[in-house]
């Protein structure tokens, strides 16, 4: 089976596992979940909301567990996640849809920037093993070990509250502006995203750098790098085309595996900055026991991570000849 097709099947299995988890977790709780949820909202939930909860859990459908499961899968396929409990009767898909663009631009771009800068610095540190940048590693380890949300708190305190360089929180100035495609809104949104993006970049960058540095050091010791130097090739060519080019492959594979972790961290960052993305929506739904929104957020984040992994696999096919060769022979 071709490499990409095999990976595609794997991601479908993973997505199915996530959906199935989502279906069975509420059922694993002893007692009647619908009534338990209803009792958590005394007075605020209309009896009609019971239908919404049942739809979300798939228990409203008559029949066996299997047919409930079938109906649930159909609902998910139609992005029908029911109605929010905390913001009744807003549709879950509307709430989630409003949060997606914020997260996608902030977390997406910050993760890519962190990966690129971290990998670049890792190349430098690995090539000049024992040099200035390499000696700064213990300091970087400390930054990497700080809980990201804690660093965010410190940065807000110093840079936003005391120095007034950045806005303190939110995605835009909601008192004055209405989201739209005009310049005043976009510039304000960019202004508000700078500090969160900066925080995500410096906390996740160190990890990429350490990993790239380690692979780079091992690669620089390979015979073909020595051969390239012996041929008298310019330094830039040896570093980038010979050493870094090959050290990049494990780094890319690591990117796929770590992206779920990085995105999780970035979501917590949204919470600290009250940034109106999926992370904040997930947190608010947890604290208000808004199960339909919780589940939709989880599925959405999972799907995003799976798609990111698929993209990385596609990139790997292009940059790693061994993957292509395997594909040609199988």
């Amino acid at each position, binding site marked *: 089976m071709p490499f990409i097709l095999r990976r595609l099947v794997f991601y479908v299995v993973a997505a199915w596992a996530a959906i199935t988890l989502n279906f069975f977790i509420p059922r694993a709780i002893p007692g009647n979940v619908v009534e338990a949820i209803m009792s958590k909202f005394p007075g605020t939930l209309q009896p009609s909301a019971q239908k919404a909860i049942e739809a979300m859990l798939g228990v409203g459908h008559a029949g066996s567990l299997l047919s409930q499961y079938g109906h649930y899968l159909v609902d998910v396929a139609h992005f029908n996640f029911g109605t929010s409990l905390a913001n009744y009767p807003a549709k879950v898909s509307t709430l989630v849809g409003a949060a997606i663009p914020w997260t996608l631009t902030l977390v997406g771009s910050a993760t890519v920037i962190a990966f690129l800068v971290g990998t670049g610095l890792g190349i430098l540190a690995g090539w000049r093993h024992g040099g200035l940048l390499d000696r700064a590693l213990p300091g970087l*380890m400390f930054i*990497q070990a700080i809980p990201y*949300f804690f660093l965010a708190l410190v940065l807000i305190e110093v840079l936003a509250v005391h120095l007034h360089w950045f806005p303190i929180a939110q995605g835009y100035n909601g008192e004055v502006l209405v989201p739209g495609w005009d310049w005043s809104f976009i510039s304000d949104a960019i202004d508000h995203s700078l500090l969160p993006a900066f925080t995500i970049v410096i906390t996740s960058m160190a990890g990429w750098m350490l990993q790239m540095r380690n692979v780079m*050091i091992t690669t620089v010791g390979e015979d073909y790098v020595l051969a390239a130097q012996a041929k008298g090739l310019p330094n830039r060519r040896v570093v980038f085309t010979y050493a870094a080019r090959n050290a990049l492959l494990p780094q890319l594979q690591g990117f796929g595996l770590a992206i779920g972790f990085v995105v999780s961290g970035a979501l917590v960052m949204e919470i600290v900055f009250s940034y109106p993305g999926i992370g904040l929506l997930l947190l608010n739904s947890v604290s208000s026991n808004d199960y339909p929104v919780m589940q939709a957020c989880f599925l959405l*984040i999972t799907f995003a991570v799976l798609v990111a992994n698929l993209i990385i696999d596609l990139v790997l096919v292009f940059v790693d000849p061994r993957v292509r060769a395997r594909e040609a022979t199988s």
Partner: protein
Amino acid sequence: MTAVLPLMTESALPVADQPVGRWRRLPTKAKVGAVLLGLFVIIAIVGPFVSPYSPGYQNPSPALSLHAPDAAHLLGTTQSGQDVLSQLLTGIGLTLVLAIAVGAVATALSVIVGVSSAYLGGVWDEVLMLIANVVLVLPALPLLIILLGYEPRQGLLATGVVLTALNWPWGARLIRAQTLAITNRDFVAAARETGERTWRILFSEIVPNEISLIAASFVNTVLFAIGASVALAFIGVADLNSYSLGTMLYWAQSQTAMNQGAWWWWAPPGIAVALIGTALVLLNFGIDELGNPRLRAAGNLNRVGGHRLYPADPTPVLHAMPKERGPVGRLLHSFSRSSLLDDRPGSRDGLSGHLSGPANDGERQ
């Protein structure tokens, strides 16, 4: 007897010598990490006995609400008059116990799954690795939030169980790969020929050779468990009546310690988490360096003709090395040579530079 000889030579573990000598040979990073971690373990054990107050005791006196550090309260008090130092001492213990328990159980699971997956092969291997890869690719924190969100008590046990369930696949994959590599070695074949039972081959021939990998995956799991449990508590998905580093941060944040300038409340738990994390990362780096000597910091770089000679540099050609520089010249030079983009013929970084010699040297300065 035939099995003994290859086993001795193939063993990845160094022959045991005096403990002092072994300690001295450890990489510096590992030593610093071990000492730092040991310090926190001691705090975790001794902490509850030396803590001056009960962590939950709320001093009713309004003067002791958000009191700055003084002799009676070395780290000040919280909004409700609780002693921060006592909370910190209890919290370090609780956070470490949870993380180490998760690390131990998850690592044991990954050894069992990894080794049996590699040894059984076939359908078992496919199924176990499929499960591992699926768990690995699902984003951990949202999954944790979903799983714990339905759990009404969200106690330590629930958090620990869920963290363990999500943490074994990474180690299992590494250990499986290592086991596959070791299984083909001669000493395993020899053990099999002598009629050793399968479980004995697995656990006394193969697993001991994976100690450094197992240690690394334990340290990684503990690191992740600390990060995840603190993050979960910080966003409120935990037993908020217990005193862990995460719940301390949760209360400090939710009662706006930051806006009130109560640094003694929010800073200590965060710094403690960061220090424990740094210790673990350093330890992991040390383990890596033990297994892969190339990674060791090139502390005593050779100097040739006033040049630092990096491991990546080709063998220098001595007569072509530029002449000795003064302090300022060296400083300027150190900047110019750290630029990788500079590969003009005059660059002294590569072999071409060494060969072109001092003639091109002048135009660069």
